[in-house]
């Protein structure tokens, strides 16, 4: 009895905070837009069975008819994918350096990675506007050094979105890779060198495979939130930056088309389920490998 009560806690949590809201959103996605409060029809006021009979997949069909939506999905996937690769390229060397740093330095370095979380995410993204704009710090610095003759246009382009995503999600990439590299036995690298590997080869044949789980975890932790990212593209991206998070926001708040916005959200969730399941499997395998 007590065991059942204990196990039920996370399930109740999931039910209340995930499944029920999802069902609500799903129901709205099957409704029609209406000039009412809430702005869709039918509602429970029409009676439960009556309401069910009026639901249809019209909004989902609409999403396939307007190419804005699938373009936004593809573009989001592309941006999320590229940002993940960029984050990995920046994060791996950092994690590696941290794991190789002298013991007394590691807590400080770890602290520095986590430090940005102490400030509001929104403020940090706004700060990038100040850095990247035509009159921003970066352009002023480059002009002063003399590398460029006229300001670079970075803000309101996809480049700015990449910079923003890499910056924001870097700790999520560094931490799992660091924890994998930290556990790596240094004598394995020596053994590889002893058996004829150059430093680079030993890194490629031993260090990388042994930090694979960390890399996979880091990539999912970046890719999953980046796919639905809204704040970064809307603040740093331009009008040509097409991301599903932005589309969702506009459908919901600008067009007040809750049913279509809900349909967009449901599709986004379905797309995300694939990497989430893969991520879970990776975590599980890692846990099994450790026992």
């Amino acid at each position, binding site marked *: 009895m007590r065991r059942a009560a204990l196990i039920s806690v996370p399930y109740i949590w999931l039910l209340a905070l995930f499944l029920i809201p999802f069902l609500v959103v799903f129901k709205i996605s099957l409704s029609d837009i209406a000039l009412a409060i809430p702005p869709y029809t039918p509602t429970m006021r029409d009676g439960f069975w009556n309401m069910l009979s009026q639901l249809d997949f019209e909004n989902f069909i609409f999403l396939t008819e307007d190419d804005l939506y699938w373009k936004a999905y593809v573009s989001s996937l592309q941006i999320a994918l590229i940002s993940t690769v960029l984050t990995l390229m920046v994060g791996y060397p950092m994690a590696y350096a941290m794991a190789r740093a002298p013991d007394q330095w590691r807590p400080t370095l770890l602290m520095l990675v986590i430090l940005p979380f102490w400030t509001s995410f929104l403020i940090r993204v706004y700060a990038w506007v100040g850095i990247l704009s035509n009159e921003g710090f970066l352009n002023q610095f480059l002009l002063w050094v003399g590398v460029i003759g006229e300001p670079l246009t970075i803000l309101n382009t996809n480049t700015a979105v990449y910079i923003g995503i890499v910056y924001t999600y870097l700790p999520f990439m560094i931490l799992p890779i660091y924890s994998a590299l930290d556990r790596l*036995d240094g*004598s*394995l690298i*020596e*053994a*590889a*060198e*002893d*058996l*004829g*590997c*150059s430093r680079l*080869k030993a890194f490629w*044949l*031993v260090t990388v*495979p*042994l930090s*694979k789980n960390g890399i996979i975890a880091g990539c999912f932790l970046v890719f999953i939130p980046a796919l639905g990212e809204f704040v970064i593209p809307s603040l740093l991206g331009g009008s040509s930056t097409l991301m599903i998070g932005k589309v969702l926001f506009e459908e919901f708040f600008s067009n007040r088309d809750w049913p279509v916005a809900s349909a967009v959200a449901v599709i986004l969730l379905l797309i995300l389920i694939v990497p989430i399941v893969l991520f879970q499997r990776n975590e599980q395998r890692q846990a099994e490998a450790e026992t």
Partner: protein
Amino acid sequence: MAETVFAPWDDPTAEPIIRFRNVTKRFGTFVAIDDLTLDIYPQEFFALLGPSGCGKTTMMRMLAGFENPTEGSIELAGKDIAGVPANKRAVNMMFQSYALFPHLSIWDNIAFGLRRETSDKAAISARVEEMLKLTRLEKLARRKPHQISGGQRQRVALARSLAKAPKLLLLDEPLGALDAKLREATQFELMDIQEKTGTTFVIVTHDQEEAMTVASRIAVMDEGRIMQVATPDRIYEAPASVYVADFIGDVNILAGTVTATGADTYALTWKDGAAPVTAVSEATFTDGQQAHLAVRPEKVAIHTTKPEDVDNLLKGKVLDIAYLGNLSTYHVELPGGQIIKAQTANTRRLSRRSITWEDPVWVGWTKTAGVLLDT
């Protein structure tokens, strides 16, 4: 004497495979190796023995190429290997932790080094199979390191380090992680494999019994210096210093001044008022020189009645008995408080043992039983 005795160190024409020449290694101000000169010959099973922190691991890491000497040179087969990185040396190492690659199967672990030097799949496969057979691991080839036992892992590590047929194999405390029974079996296995492959082995250990069992010669080290290099029997029976005598096995030490009583016999006055003990020594001492007599407990006989015709005889009483099953060590306290250890083989059952605590006894040894040492 049979001429098949393996003793290249006594042969002035033999070429050493490794030559340490005045090697010094410092880490900051700490001197790990202090002006060390040493020759190791092909096909030797050479043991570096010493307490932890004596510099034995540093010597091994210098041979492997993970450290470079601060001063002096190390030659491998006549060539200075100072600047040669680890991956370019014909030296392989078996790590204390075994350092097996956890993401690779046993087969791939053994093939790892081979793949670095050739892409000939058939040759690699043949060599790996040969190594698996040598270490009796054929059935485990497809397993991962975490799926096999400690003893099996040890054999994989050995197979992997032998696969490239190195000129020199370094073994860093290879049996440290095994339990006593398995360790003993593995020691003989190691000797067997060393003999079969004809590779020069250098083993680092702090376990003197292990060094005595496997090695052709032992270097006893302390604080970055070599105290003595000799065959196990010489190390045990003719230690060069009190440190070596004390480090290897159990020993009774009597300190005092010597006076010559014959061509090579000396009397050691070890206590005022007590009869001096006599000892034969190849080394010469001047009268009145400080010296130590080292006698192994098993060479000290214990008697309940005063025996006749014993070179050195001391009276005392039994303080302690350490019963080891096959052996018993009696701690006999002499009147001045000095303890002499005497060891006897328990050829009789315990119930018929004639000596017990507080018994007055005589301990005696011949004049050739001990070694007279100046330091």
